[in-house]
C-alpha cells in the first residue's frame, strides 16, 4: 500500500466537532493531525465581567461536563473571597459532582463508545453504521443493545440527582461559591438515595459486565492506541473548610515516578494552533488572537506541556495514580478505567448522602475578595482542569481555562506529539475499510470534548513564565 492521506471527518459521537487527518503507509498510520474545528473563546468572554458570573458563565463552556466548570469557578471564588465551607456543603457538592460524573461516564460508554463495538439496530440514528470489525455473537450483541437503551434511563436519573439539589442540568444553579444554595432535607436525601440505588444496580449488572465483555472480545485493544505512559491528574473530590483536602490524590506519573503537580511547570503553546502571538507594547505579557489562516496550524486546540513533556489525563490517570487500577495506557485500559471509576463513584456518593445532615442550605459567602489572583485545579470527568483569574475591583481582567481535552488533544509542538496523536501513530490498519472503525475506537477512548477545548488563552509564555495567566 502506498502512502495515502485520509481525512476521518466528522468524528461523530462526541461533544463538539473533531476531524482527524492521517497518513497511512504500508498498512500503518505514520502521521496524525487531530483538529478541533470550532472556536469558542470563553477566556475572552469572561473578561470585564463580575468575577462571580464565572460560576454560571463558565458552565457554558461545556454541555456534558458543565458542573465541573461551575465547581472550578466556585473553588476559585472560595479562594478569592476566603469562604469557609461547612462539612455538609462539601458532602453535598461532591454528591452533585459525582452525579455529573455518572451521567458523563454512562453516556460516554453506551451512547458514544458502544457503537464502535456493537451492531446497532438498523434505523436512524444508527443507520449506515459500517462497523467493519463486529465480533460479538447475536445474543451478546442484543444484550448490549438493550443495555444501551437502559443506559439512557440510568444517565437521566444521574442528572435527576443533580437537578434535585442543583435546580436543573446541564448548567446547574446551586453549587456556587461559599457552598450550596439548596437545603439537604430528608426527602431529597431519600430520593437521591433511591435514584442512586437504581444507578448503582445498572452499573453493577450492566456497565461493569458489558465493559468486561468488550475488553475480553476486543482484547487486542489493550495493545492498540498506546501512549507514552506519562499521566497527570490534579486529584478529585475536594473536602475541608478551604477545599484543601482531596479524596483522590493528584499526581504526575512519569517513568514510574509519582510527584505532586507543580503549576509553575505547566506551559501552553500555539505552534500548531490557529492563534497568533503578538507582543503587546509596554505590557509584561503577550497578546494572543485567533488566526484561522495561520500557515502550518491545524486546530483551535492549543498544546499544553508539563515540564516540557506532553501528558495524558483522564479516568485512567486517576485510577492508576490512586492505585485503583494496575494496567497500561491503551485504548481498552482507558475504557476499563472509566467504567471502574463509575462504580467507585456510585459507592462514594452513597456514603456522602448518608453522611449529609438534614438542615438549612449550607452556604456562606463572604462579601469582599481578599486576593486578586487565583489558580485552582482539580479533575473534571475527562481529567485535569485548571481555572485561573486575575481581578481588579471584582471585575475579571484575565481568566484562563485549561481543559483535560487540551492535554489529550494537544497538537504537535517542538516537543513532539500530544497523547491522542501519539496513540494513533503506529496503529496497524489491516484493510482501508477498517480505518474509521479503528481510529474511532482509539479517539473515543479519550472521551473527547472539543467544545471545552477550543478556547483562546489570554497569554502565552510571558516574561514571568506565569503561563496560567
Amino acid at each position: 500500500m502506498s502512502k495515502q492521506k485520509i481525512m476521518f471527518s466528522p468524528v461523530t459521537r462526541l461533544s463538539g466537532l473533531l476531524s482527524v487527518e492521517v497518513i497511512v503507509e504500508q498498512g500503518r498510520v505514520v502521521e496524525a493531525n487531530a483538529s478541533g474545528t470550532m472556536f469558542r473563546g470563553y477566556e475572552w468572554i469572561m473578561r470585564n465581567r463580575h468575577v462571580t458570573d464565572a460560576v454560571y458563565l463558565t458552565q457554558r463552556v461545556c454541555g456534558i461536563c458543565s458542573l465541573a466548570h461551575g465547581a472550578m469557578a466556585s473553588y476559585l471564588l472560595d479562594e478569592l473571597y476566603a469562604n469557609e465551607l461547612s462539612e455538609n456543603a462539601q458532602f453535598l457538592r461532591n454528591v452533585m459532582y459525582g452525579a455529573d460524573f455518572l451521567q458523563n461516564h454512562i453516556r460516554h460508554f453506551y451512547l458514544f463508545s458502544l457503537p464502535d463495538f456493537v451492531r446497532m439496530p438498523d434505523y436512524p440514528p444508527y443507520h449506515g453504521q459500517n462497523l467493519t470489525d463486529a465480533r460479538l455473537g447475536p445474543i451478546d450483541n442484543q444484550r448490549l443493545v438493550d443495555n444501551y437503551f437502559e443506559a439512557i434511563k440510568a444517565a437521566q436519573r444521574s442528572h435527576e440527582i443533580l437537578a434535585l439539589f442543583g435546580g436543573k442540568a446541564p448548567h446547574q444553579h446551586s453549587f456556587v461559591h461559599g457552598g450550596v444554595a439548596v437545603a439537604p432535607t430528608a426527602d431529597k436525601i431519600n430520593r437521591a438515595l433511591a435514584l442512586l440505588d437504581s444507578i448503582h444496580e445498572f452499573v453493577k449488572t450492566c456497565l461493569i459486565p458489558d465493559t468486561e465483555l468488550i475488553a475480553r472480545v476486543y482484547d487486542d485493544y489493550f495493545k492498540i492506541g498506546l501512549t507514552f505512559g506519562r499521566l497527570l491528574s490534579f486529584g478529585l473530590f475536594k473536602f475541608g473548610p478551604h477545599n484543601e483536602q482531596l479524596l483522590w490524590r493528584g499526581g504526575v506519573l512519569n517513568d514510574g515516578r509519582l510527584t505532586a503537580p507543580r503549576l509553575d511547570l505547566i506551559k501552553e503553546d500555539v505552534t500548531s494552533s490557529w492563534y497568533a502571538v503578538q507582543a503587546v507594547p509596554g505590557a509584561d505579557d503577550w497578546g494572543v488572537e485567533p488566526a484561522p489562516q495561520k500557515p502550518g496550524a491545524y486546530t483551535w486546540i492549543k498544546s499544553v506541556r508539563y515540564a516540557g513533556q506532553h501528558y495524558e489525563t483522564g479516568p485512567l490517570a486517576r485510577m492508576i495514580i490512586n492505585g485503583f487500577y494496575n494496567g497500561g495506557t491503551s485504548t481498552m485500559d482507558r475504557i476499563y478505567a472509566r467504567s471502574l471509576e463509575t462504580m467507585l463513584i456510585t459507592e462514594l456518593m452513597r456514603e456522602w448522602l448518608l453522611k449529609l445532615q438534614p438542615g438549612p442550605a449550607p452556604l456562606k459567602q463572604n462579601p469582599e475578595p481578599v486576593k486578586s489572583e487565583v489558580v485552582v485545579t482539580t479533575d473534571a470527568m475527562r481529567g485535569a482542569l485548571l481555572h485561573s483569574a486575575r481581578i481588579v475591583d471584582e471585575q475579571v481582567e484575565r481568566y484562563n481555562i485549561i481543559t483535560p481535552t487540551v492535554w489529550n488533544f494537544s497538537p504537535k509542538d517542538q516537543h513532539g506529539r500530544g497523547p491522542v496523536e501519539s496513540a494513533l501513530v503506529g496503529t496497524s490498519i489491516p484493510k482501508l475499510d477498517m480505518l474509521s472503525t479503528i481510529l474511532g475506537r482509539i479517539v473515543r477512548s479519550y472521551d473527547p470534548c472539543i467544545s471545552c477545548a477550543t478556547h483562546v488563552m489570554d497569554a502565552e509564555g510571558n516574561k514571568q513564565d506565569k503561563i496560567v495567566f
Partner: protein
Amino acid sequence: MQQQEFIELCRELALVDDHALTRVILPVIKEHLTRSNQNKLPVIWVETNDSGDNNIAFMNTTFPYLGQVFSEMIDLLYSNTFMAAQGVDALMVLEQTAVLYKGRFTLVVEGAVPVKDNGIYNIIARTENRNITALDAVSRLGKLAQYVVANGTCASFGGPTAARPNLSGSVGVRDVLDREVINVSGCPTNPDWFVGTLAHLLLYGRPELDNLGRPTLFYGFTVHRHCQRRSYFDRDDFAEKLGDIECMFSQGCVGPRTSADCPYRQWINYVNWPVRANTPCIGCTNEDFPDGSTPFFTPLPEKSGQAATPGGAQTSPGVQITVGEGRNE
C-alpha cells in the same frame, strides 16, 4: 415505483428461480420504507458553535425517553452526537438524506453560526479538499428543509457563543437564513420544549410562535408570572442572600423579563428549577442572554445596560412580552 410497474415486474420475474425478483424489489421496498414513514418526523441535526448542552438536555427527556423518541417519533437522519456512522460514511448520509428528504425534513441547528471570515471559525466536517463550514451547511440545508428549528439560545439568538466580544462573529440561525426559523431558546432547552416542538410539527404542523419565533406553547408567559415566589415579590419580601426562600429579585433574578414555563414545568423529570433551588433565574431563554443578564447576581435595575425596574419599562428591543408584568398583574 408505480403500482403497474411493480405488478409487471412480479409477473416477469416470478418464475425465475435465481431470486432476481427479490434483488429488484428489495431496494425499492427499502427506499419506500425510508421515504414514506409518515409516522415519524425526518430530522437532520447540525451541531455548530455551542457547548453541546442542548443535546445533553435532549438525552434527559422522560416519556418519551430518548430511545422512544428515536424508535417512535423522529428519524434522526444525521446527528454528530448520536449517529452510529462516522467519517465519510456520516457525510454521505448527510448528503444523501438531504436530497432524498428534500422539502420534508426538519433541520435542527444546535449552536450559533460564525459568519466572520466566511464562517471559518466553525467547520462541521472536512474532506480531503474542502472544509464544510457551519455557515455553508446551515445555508444549504436551510433551503432544502420543510421546517428549521433552532435548538438553544445560541442557535436562536447567538447566545453565550455570541457574548461580547464575540470574536468569531457568531449569530443566530435567523440571521443567516431568509426564511422562518422556529426558535426553541434556552441554555440549555428544557427537553420538553424541544421534544414538544418536534411533536407539534409531527402531529399538528407549525406551532403558534411569539414575536421572537418561539412556540407560545412554552414561551407564552414570563417566569415571573407563574413563579411560586410571586407572593413574596408582591409583598416586597426579598431574599437577603442565595439560599433564602424569599423572592430572588434582590439576587439578580430576571424572571420578570424572561419568557419560559420553568416554574410549573420544572426540569429533569420535573423535580426542580433555579428559583426553587434558591437562586435567581438568569434569563437563559432571552434574546440578549447572557450579556443582558450579567452581572448575574446584581438586581435587574442595576445590571449593565439595563433600565428596567420591576414592572417597569422595556429593557431592550425584541423582548416586548417579557417586561411589563409588574406587581399589579
